[in-house]
């Protein structure tokens, strides 16, 4: 019997009051963004916003609850931009979006450093009794978003980023699931040799986790070789973007197989059109019918981070995902 688990990839939009309060408290320039040592009113505002988005997920009835990553001003580059060995450079485009983040320039050893993400999860853990899900950028994506001025070698840099993420995971409280977001595996696909190293780096981060590990890929389908290598990593599920490219994604699964569990991105994280629970459920069942696998767990999620959405549509999508998982099976 397949269990459907409703979840999200995190990186939520700030509640509108927090957009106002935090921009007043922090400012609008690049030097005003999160450095990891904030306190006082800024920390209090984030605490309040975190509690709000956690409660909202619980009200919606999601099976996994994320911390929300509301502090991640630099989106997936965040774990590096707050690192002591990293200088933040100019504002750079964040993938092919009308979004920008600071360029994390790595200038020293990426040693274990304070556990910024672990601290967020500690705060979340106090509010979540079960189903807490950690979110991190995958090592290939984080290395891709950064500029290395210290290691001088792509392979060594990727390993260092993986070790650093592993040390973050070591410091985590108990979590049910660890989600590694790896859009760069699609957007800037690793070539020969690098694809294998990317898989090993993911494996290294996953092995640090005492939780189910899901690696979510998005903005299209993986290249076949990248997909094949990804399956070599000791992870529990791959997340596939059925919103952007369902045909090639289905081909990849049927041609190369996948893990015993699977994560299906069936809600569009970058469009305000809200999917109904029935539509979401139909998309899930379409995949299970078109594949021969007998999945233990099917995670149902959105394909991208959710900060792209205005708050009302973001919340409607949380509700739709949770409701879809609870629906009785619908048969065409």
């Amino acid at each position, binding site marked *: 019997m397949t269990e459907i688990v409703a979840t999200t990839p995190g990186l939520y*939009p*700030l509640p*509108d009051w927090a*957009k106002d309060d*935090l*921009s007043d408290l*922090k*400012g*609008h*320039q*690049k030097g*005003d*963004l999160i450095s990891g040592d904030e306190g006082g009113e800024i920390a209090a505002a984030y605490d309040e916003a975190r509690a709000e988005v956690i409660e909202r997920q619980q009200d919606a009835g999601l099976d996994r609850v994320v911390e929300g990553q509301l502090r991640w*001003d630099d989106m997936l580059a965040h774990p590096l931009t707050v690192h002591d060995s990293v200088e933040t450079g100019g*504002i750079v*485009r*964040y993938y*092919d*979006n*009308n*979004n*920008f*983040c600071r360029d994390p320039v790595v200038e020293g050893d990426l040693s274990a450093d304070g556990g910024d993400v672990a601290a967020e999860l500690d705060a979340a853990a106090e509010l979540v009794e079960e189903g807490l899900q950690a979110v991190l950028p995958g090592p290939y994506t984080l290395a891709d978003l950064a500029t290395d001025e210290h290691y001088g070698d792509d392979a060594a840099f990727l390993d260092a980023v993986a070790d650093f993420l592993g040390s973050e995971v070591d410091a985590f409280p108990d979590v049910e699931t660890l989600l590694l977001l790896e859009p760069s595996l699609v957007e800037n696909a690793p070539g020969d040799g690098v694809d294998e190293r990317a898989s090993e780096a993911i494996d290294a981060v996953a092995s640090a986790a005492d939780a189910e590990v899901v690696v979510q890929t998005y903005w299209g389908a993986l290249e076949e070789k990248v997909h094949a290598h990804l399956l070599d990593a000791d992870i529990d599920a791959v997340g596939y973007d059925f919103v952007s490219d369902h045909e090639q994604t289905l081909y990849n699964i049927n041609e190369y197989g996948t893990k015993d569990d699977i994560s299906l991105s069936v809600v569009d994280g*970058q*469009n*305000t*059109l809200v999917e109904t629970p029935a539509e979401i459920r139909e998309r899930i069942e379409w995949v299970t019918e078109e594949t021969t696998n007998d999945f233990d767990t099917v995670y149902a999620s959105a394909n991208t981070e959710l*900060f*792209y*959405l*205005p*708050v*009302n*549509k973001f919340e409607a999508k949380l509700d739709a995902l949770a409701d879809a998982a609870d629906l009785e099976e619908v048969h065409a």
Partner: protein
Amino acid sequence: MTDTREQFRPEDHPNDHFLMTTVVGSYPKPKWHNRARELFEDEDSEFDVDNWEEAKDDAARLITKEHERAGVDVVTDGEMRRNEMVEYFAHRIDGYDFNGRVKVWGHNYFDKPSVVDEVEYDEQWLVEEFEFTDDVADAPVKVPITGPYTLASWSFNEVYDDEEQLTYALADLVNEEIDALVEAGARYIQIDEPALATTPDDHAIVGEALERIVDDVPEDVRLGLHVCYGDYSRIYPEILDYPVEEYDLELANGDYEQLDVFKDDEFTEDFAMGVVDVHTAEIESVEEIKDNIKKGLEVVPPERLTVSPDCGVKLLPREIAYGKMENMVKAAREVEAELDAGEIDVVAGDAATADD
């Protein structure tokens, strides 16, 4: 092709050469104007719609004249009536809806609209703005208008099959607006497509959209395209096939690192080059700007060079924005005089002088 530039040469222009100076569009709003908007949006305030209209008229009058005072040849009203380059238009197009702010970066947000129904032309977008500015201005007026590709890319598309289809639907509306602007007397229209820099692979879509936009536009109307903050090698020289005469490009911000892109293939249209950086709060000296203008002369001859800031100057302090424009005009006039005197012999495309 009809020469659409000469009509903008001022009668009292002091030099034989004419390096047309203009702006990309936006200008810092006076503080009182922002305060007026706050009052208008405050439900508890008695500041009503008539007061707000008066404030916009006053600001437009003031900033149009501020451009003229700086000596700019072709002016705008600094977009005093517009809040943002997508929102402003989306509010006027049937089929758009607003849900709330989304992040661009850090704590900078915009009210990204959603297309929830087929887009249709409703009320005028810019005709009243143009008529007012043209009435106030002694100088000729340029009308910047956000292009359909950017309007589509920077919206949520809930209705059309893909962004391309939405772009073409919006292009038909932009065409309708440009027809109305031309009818009202506009002779210089700049289509802003910053989103092209985000997704350069879509340059063919922008080209097809422009073909729809320029349909039926008379030959004496000058059409420009503004693109900024991108990797131009991914769109040039392909964009030269677009049905516009002038390309306005940001280059000062990157310290002209990309200038060679435009020299490798001959720049066959008019080149409106950014000569001041809109992301630094220091006013460039006249000498520095003259050097920048001369870089433009490595790309096109003087009769095809337009001089402008990199982009809209609205994020700068107002006195800095003014200072940049004033120095930009001084620099252009001095370079013209040097050209007249034969002191500058770097002429693009002329093999005889390319050896110095």
